[in-house]
Structures are given as C-alpha cells and as structure tokens.
C-alpha cells in the first residue's frame, strides 16, 4: 500500500473518536448522544484492526469482533432504556432527566 | 489470480439479470392464471402479434415511466428519492458471487464463470441483504403517512427477525463442506457417496460386494441437509417480503403498506427488486443445495477428460461450459416456478404468525440442526477411519 502507513489509519481513528466525544459532550438529544457513543466504539475498533495489521497478528481482529458483540448488546439495552425514558417523560432532551442532580 | 477472463461471467450476469427481470412479470401473470384456471393477461400486442402475453412487460414499463412521479408534502425528499435504489441495488449486486459454472481453460484463457469468486461468498450475500432492509424501512417513513409508517415498522421487524434464522440455518452446510466459497461448493457437490457403505464398515456384508458400489448418491446439499433447505427457503422468502410473508405490503389491510406514497417507476423499482430477489434466491439455493451447475452422477472433470480425445481440449471445455450454464439456468427456473407456486397457493400470514415462525420455530430448529450435523460429522469421521 504505497504511502499509506498505519499512522494514517490511527489518525482517522483519532479523528472519528474525537468527533464522537464531541457529540456526546455537546448534543442534548439522547438518540444522537447514543449514536456518538457508537462512533467512539467504531473508532476504537478501527485502531485495533489497524494495529493488528501492523503487527501481523490476528488478536486485534478478534478483540474488535468481541467489541462488536458488546456494542450490539449495549445498543439493545440502551435503546430499551431510551424507549422507557421517552415514554415516561415524553421528551428526548437529556437535560429534562436531571432530577438526581443536586 | 492468473489471467482470468470474467467477460463471459459479466455477460451472463447481465443476460440473466436483464432477461429475467421483466420476464418475471409475465411468469407471475401466466403461472397464476394457469393455477387459477383462467387465461391471464393477453391483450397487449404489437402489430397484431400477441406473443403469449410477453408484450405486457413492455407495456408495463412504458406505463410506469410515463406516470407522474408524486412526492407528498411534508415528505423527506432525499429519502423518498433514494429508498427504491437502496431496495434494488442489494438484489442486483448479490449476483456477483453466484457461480454459473466452474473454471475452464480454453484457447489459453482461464475463464471463470463467477463474476467475483470471493472466499466468503455466502457471507457477502448476507451482508448485502441486510442493507436491503433500509430500502423498505425508510420508504414508509419518508412518505409522511400513517399507513406507510405501520408498514415500515412491520417490515423492519420481519426482516431483521429472519436475518437471524437465515445465517444460522446454513451453518450446518458450511460445516460439512468446509468452505464459504460458492464455486467450491459446486465442485464438492459433484462427489458421490455410497448409500449402503455403512454396511461394509460395520462388517455386516463381505468386503467385496459389488452392488454396494453401484448405489451412489451425489453429495448435493439437499441430500446432506434436507430440512435446512426448506428452512433456508422460508427465511429467504420472508426476507423478500413476498407472499405468504407480505404482511408489510398488506394489500387488503393497510393499502400497500410501506410503498403507499410511491407511484410510477419508483414503485416499479420496488417490484423489480422483489422479482430480481426471487431469481437471486433461486440461484443461491441452486448453488448451495441443488448441485450448482452439474448433472448428478457426472463429474465435470471426468466429462472434460473424456471429451478431450474426441473434440480437442478447447472444444471439450467449451462444451462443458455451455452444458454447465444450461443446467444451472434450468435448475434456477425450476426453483422460480416453485416459489411462484408457493406465492399463489398460500394465504398471507398474520403478523404474529410471521414472528412466531421466525423466532419460535426456525431459530430453535436451526440450532438443533447445527448440533445434529456436528454429531453426524463426528460419527462419519469415526466410522471411516
């Protein structure tokens, strides 16, 4: 692969991770925050797979596969929580669910 | 990969696709007419030639293209525009891994009759099929219509439920064949096994009996895994949203469900996608379960080496290639006929019956099939050593 090295893939992963983190911090819509969390997980996966290729070992890919399994479970449970939350509060603004803040 | 010409494969791919898609409308009309004891559509004619109703697909296309393309107010314009394409494109690109035949050496060229012979061919079809969910799901949402939304929710639930059963049903077949490559499966299905060979292994018959060697059965997928063939067919038909699984389309309940706000050629694209998917289902089942491009009990390598002294190597390969393509297409046509038969005989399932079938019947059966297949493989390996 010409002039593209592992460094380039890491930069892409870092960019996507930062964009996801920015989304979690700035956005107030529950669903968009959850999607930003998925972006962060994907960026971590990209980093893992890229390192796996650099080292020549497939452990990174297996780790990435198991991260995907965990992400799938987390999405299922998280969306179930979001459904009950929105049904009860009738809002998707996360600032309206702050009853337990001091 | 050495010099490998895929031009023949691409030509076949285009031929099958472009030829089958409009002919399927004709097949649907005429076969349903035959089954229901009526004549079917036979009015369209060019200069007085009716051609058994084959002009009707042309008339349909002209009608659909010249219809007004309505976009309702309040609709999401981008989604409304691209949803038909998202529904059709996965069906078309699934053809990339279907093997019309094996690999032939003709006139110095290495001709492979598969457009893209991927190592993970079947996984590619599943991955692409899971993208097709979006085409139907976004269509109902994009139209800003309550009936459309209802159809969308039903269709997304149905499609993702049957994707689970789809993947697990064929794991038994992968375990036996040991490969995901569709052309390798086609080659492996040309082997035969002796039906009564176990008598010899257990010592119940003398080791030199001749009649045991005469009774052989080709190792087709449907012979090795009969129940998964029907489960896979069921799951694929549910993915395709054709009757009896067309609750999302609910023609009598929710007024065409998720494509209620589509008119003209966009609606035509959805219908085309469904019919192309019927051909994809038939081709996939043929390649995996019905022996692909080979005639039973006739190994292709034997045939080519047998014909080479008579016709020369190039012509022998060419003859084998033509035979393979014809056999494959005949099997595909038989399966298309079978699917149309099912579509026009069974009433539509209720939504809870569809979910029940997917989760409570297909999933446990496919898991049990994996366990039984694994046991079977272990037993056969123990006995034949």
């Amino acid at each position, binding site marked *: 692969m010409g002039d*593209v090295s592992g*460094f380039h893939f890491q930069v892409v992963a870092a960019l996507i991770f930062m964009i996801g983190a920015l*989304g979690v911090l700035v956005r107030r*819509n529950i*669903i968009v925050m959850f999607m930003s969390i998925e972006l962060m997980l994907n960026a971590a996966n990209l980093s893992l797979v890229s390192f796996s290729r650099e080292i020549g070992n497939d452990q990174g890919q297996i780790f990435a596969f198991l991260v995907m399994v965990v992400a799938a479970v987390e999405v299922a*449970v998280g969306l179930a929580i979001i459904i009950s939350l929105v049904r009860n509060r009738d809002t998707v603004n996360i600032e309206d669910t702050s009853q337990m803040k001091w | 990969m050495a010099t490998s010409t895929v031009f023949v494969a691409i030509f076949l791919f285009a031929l099958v696709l472009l030829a089958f898609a409009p002919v399927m409308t004709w097949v649907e009309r005429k076969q349903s007419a035959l089954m229901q004891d009526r004549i079917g559509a036979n009015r369209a004619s060019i200069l007085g030639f009716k051609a058994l109703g084959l002009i009707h697909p042309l008339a349909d296309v002209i009608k659909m293209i010249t219809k007004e393309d309505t976009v309702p107010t309040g609709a999401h314009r981008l989604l409304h525009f691209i949803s038909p394409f998202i529904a059709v494109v996965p069906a078309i690109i699934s053809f990339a891994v279907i093997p019309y035949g094996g690999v032939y050496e003709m006139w110095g060229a290495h001709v492979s009759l598969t457009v893209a012979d991927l190592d993970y061919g079947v996984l590619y079809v599943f*991955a692409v099929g899971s993208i097709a*969910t979006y085409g139907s799901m976004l269509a109902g949402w994009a139209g800003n219509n309550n009936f459309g*939304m209802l159809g969308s929710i039903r269709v997304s639930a149905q499609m993702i439920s049957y994707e689970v059963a789809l993947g697990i049903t064929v794991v038994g077949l992968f375990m036996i064949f040991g490969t995901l490559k569709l052309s390798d499966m086609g080659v492996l299905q040309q082997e035969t096994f002796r039906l009564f060979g176990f008598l010899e292994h257990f010592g119940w018959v003398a080791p030199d009996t001749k009649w045991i060697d005469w009774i052989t059965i080709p190792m087709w997928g449907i012979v090795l895994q009969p129940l998964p063939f029907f489960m896979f067919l069921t799951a694929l038909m549910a993915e395709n949203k054709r009757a009896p699984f067309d609750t999302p389309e609910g023609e009598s309940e929710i007024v065409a469900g998720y494509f209620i706000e589509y008119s003209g050629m966009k609606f035509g694209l959805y219908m085309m996608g469904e019919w192309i998917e019927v051909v994809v289902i038939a081709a996939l089942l043929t390649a995996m379960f019905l022996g692909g491009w080979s005639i039973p009990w006739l190994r292709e390598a034997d045939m080519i080496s047998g014909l080479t002294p008579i016709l020369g190597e190039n012509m022998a390969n060419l003859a084998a290639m033509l035979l393979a393509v014809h056999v494959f297409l005949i099997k595909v046509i038989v399966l298309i006929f079978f699917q149309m038969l099912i579509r026009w005989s069974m009433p539509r399932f209720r939504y809870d019956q569809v979910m029940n079938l997917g989760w409570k019947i297909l999933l446990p059966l496919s898991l049990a099939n994996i366990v039984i297949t694994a046991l079977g493989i272990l037993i056969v390996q123990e006995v034949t050593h």
Partner: protein
Amino acid sequence: MRTALFWVFSAAAVLSALGVIGNVRTPINSALSLVVSMLALAGLYVLLEAQFVGLIQVMVYAGAIVVLFLFVIMLLNLRGSGAIGAETQPIMKAIGALVAGGATLWLVRTLAAGRAPWPDVDDGFGTTRAIGEALYTDYVLSVQVAGVLLLAGIVAAVVLAKKKID
C-alpha cells in the same frame, strides 16, 4: 489504487461522522450518516486485510444496530426534534470544536512517533477460517462469555421495553 481507496473511505468516514453530530434537523439524518460512516469503516477494514471483521461490520453494525436506531426513532415518532436548547448556542459549539481539535492534534503528535513499514502477511490472514479457528480454540472462553452477555442483554431489553400490564 489502494491509496486512492483509503483516501475515499477515510474522507467518507470522517465527513459522515461530522454529519452524525452536526445534524440539526431530524435524528433520522444522523442515523443515515451513521450508516454511511459504518460502511466506510467496513471498506477500511477490508483494506487492512480484515475481511471477516469488515463483513461482520456490515452485517451487524450497518445492517442491524443502525436498523434498531431507526426502528426506535420511528416507534417514538421523533420527527424534527434534532437540536434542543443548549446545543444551538454558538459559543458552546466553538469551545467544543476548539477542545476537540486540540485533543486530536495532541493525539496525532503522540502517534507520529512510531512509523514502521507493514510486515507481509500470508493469504490466510484475516479470513473467516483463521478467525474461526482462533476464536474456537484459543479464545473459546471469550466466545462463551459473549454468549452469556448476549443472553443477559436480550432478557434485559425485553423486560425494559415491555409496557406495564396492570
């Protein structure tokens, strides 16, 4: 050719990630940008010789997880509730973008230290067979634990999303 593909997929991934967080009209637009991002990442995985992971990315992430997101958005009928309250203030966005940009630059500077050429890997690297063999021999315990986790997730999702039967 592969370099060009890398740039195309990377640009698509980063731009659609920006589309996920920067979309102010409806959550559906964010979800669609997420799909494009997942597909672009799957392309990057295939470029990294990780074919099995790339296919599973399309099948699981783009084909099931984002479908779940869209399903929930449709179920709750969230039309046009994209940007709410505090998000529309430009000061917040500017500060957020500055912090994110700074963190990225710092991360990139740390990463720029190591730049080794890639080793050659044999043909079986990253194929389904290799991953399957490793998963079911060396990492079989992880697979079992993942199975139990999935079961717990299924039960939890069913219990949480049920309407109360009074």
